[in-house]
């Protein structure tokens, strides 16, 4: 790396003469070594999935979860340094609960992404701290129905002031990815971690912007994408962890929950089948070539 020996990478919050912050770039490197995480946003919900590399046979399968619930309607998955991810989730929970204590209702996904983005960005400004070694994918569902205010006991006046627009549509899915620099964007499909390039290529094929993919299909696609992204890291075993948030009419009723075991297993079987199918095609292709040579 050209930066080594120049001295501009030794402290946080110091720019190099060509306008780079090396500590932030090194944090991104830490993310690039983490297990792949993806998020898919569709019309009726959001799916989060992560490739959990098994570092030891002594670890209990299914334990040490990597996707966390932040509030009833929000989940976070991160790639990179797991302890940084945990601290990040803890901060997200504090933000969500402080929002509730002020506004007496659930935090909108965009507001949470904004607050977390600001929080991460602050860690690029001071020499006493280092940037977060995680890129986090934040998924949630803003209620489309009018929610009762927390602690509300009655329905209030039936007429008079209020200024509500009748039939106004609100709420829906939210998916954001927050990087070590504090940069965050909203996405239809987000991927981070070691296999992000392969995962992004697969996500782009899904045409998520047209919002035609259903939540159930998104679960299967997310599983398949994690399996595809794992192809470059085949020597290591992994576990697939997935969670989802659906609309109020959907299977989770606007809550962030683990994908049920049966559906997860079904999605994993389909993912393996899809991969095997690809391999067979390749083998057949290879045979064809041999024959051609003969």
């Amino acid at each position, binding site marked *: 790396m050209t930066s080594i020996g120049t001295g501009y990478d030794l402290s946080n919050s110091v720019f190099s003469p060509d306008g780079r912050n090396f500590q932030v770039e090194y944090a991104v490197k830490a993310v690039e070594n983490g297990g792949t995480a993806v998020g898919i946003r569709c019309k009726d919900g959001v799916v989060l999935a992560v490739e959990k590399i098994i570092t030891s046979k002594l670890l209990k399968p299914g334990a040490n979860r990597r996707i966390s*619930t932040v509030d009833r309607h929000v989940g976070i998955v991160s790639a990179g340094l797991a302890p940084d991810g945990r601290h990040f989730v803890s901060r997200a929970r504090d933000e969500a609960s402080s929002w509730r204590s002020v506004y007496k209702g659930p935090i909108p996904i965009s507001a949470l992404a904004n607050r977390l983005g600001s929080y991460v960005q602050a860690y690029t400004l001071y020499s006493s701290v280092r940037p977060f070694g995680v890129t986090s994918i934040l998924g949630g569902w803003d209620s489309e129905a009018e929610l009762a205010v927390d602690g509300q*006991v009655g329905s209030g006046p039936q007429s008079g002031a209020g200024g509500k627009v009748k039939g106004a549509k609100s709420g829906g899915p939210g998916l954001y990815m927050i990087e070590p620099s504090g940069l965050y964007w909203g996405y239809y499909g987000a991927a981070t971690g070691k296999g992000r390039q392969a995962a992004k290529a697969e996500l782009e094929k899904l045409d998520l912007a047209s919002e035609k993919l259903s939540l159930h299909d998104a679960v299967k696609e997310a599983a398949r994408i994690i399996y595809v992204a794992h192809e470059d890291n085949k020597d290591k075993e992994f576990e697939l962890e997935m969670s989802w948030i659906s609309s109020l009419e959907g299977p989770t009723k606007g809550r962030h929950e683990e994908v049920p075991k049966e559906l997860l297993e079904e999605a994993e079987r389909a993912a393996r089948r899809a991969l095997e199918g690809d391999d067979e095609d390749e083998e057949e292709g290879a045979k064809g070539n041999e024959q051609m040579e003969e």
Partner: protein
Amino acid sequence: MNHFPGTWGRPRDDVYGPYDSSYLRSTGPKAHTQSPAVTGTSVIAVKFNGGVAIAADNLASYGSLARFTDVKRLRVFGDAAVVGFSGDVSDMQYIDRLLESMDIRENYSAHGNQLNAKNLHTYLSKVLYKRRSEFNPLWNHILVAGFDGEKKPFLSSADLLGTTFSAPHLATGFGAHLAIPILRRLFPEERPIEEITKEDAIKALKECLKVLWYRDARSLDKYSLAVITQEGIEVQEDQQIEAQSWAFAETIKGYGAQTV
């Protein structure tokens, strides 16, 4: 609470002579947090074979004014319990938010160990006791209905001092005086809970609510009723007390405009 005993009521001057109140304290600190403002009256609940039924009317009174008539005093906690609140409504809202935040925290991980009604009652009674120990009580008397850890119907109460009490049927406020005797007659101690059906319990609660509506001046004829069974929680709000008969009122003597 009024901390000046001089206003608590005293013997009649015309019978007993002027009362010597010189020993009583007539000034002292103001204690705003120690008097309820907007209040709900009784909550009543009965255990039956396979569950618990609980009811409360939809009124929040401001002193003797029937101020809010669509107040939900039965609060559902997760899918495990119903908490019925009497006493101060703003303190009820505080507790409701407290339970909400606890529910969110409990569900950060899906470990499958949900809090049951018994856990919830223990927690609430300790919150109430802590606050009374700080001389800043939460002015509520609550009933917690649901199931305990062994999946048996659970019903228990906790008051503003943190006192807990448990029985097959319970009532708070005026109901403790008016509903409990009715419930004891309907469901005597020797009658096992297994013999009480859900319908019996609901019928008894409706009967008690009607008596309370007749005789408790801070009550309402609109009420909510929740039934908790292993199948889940069923809450009916905006119910109306039916088949009222005020004929008995004619025979009551001793107050009002009667001259006889």
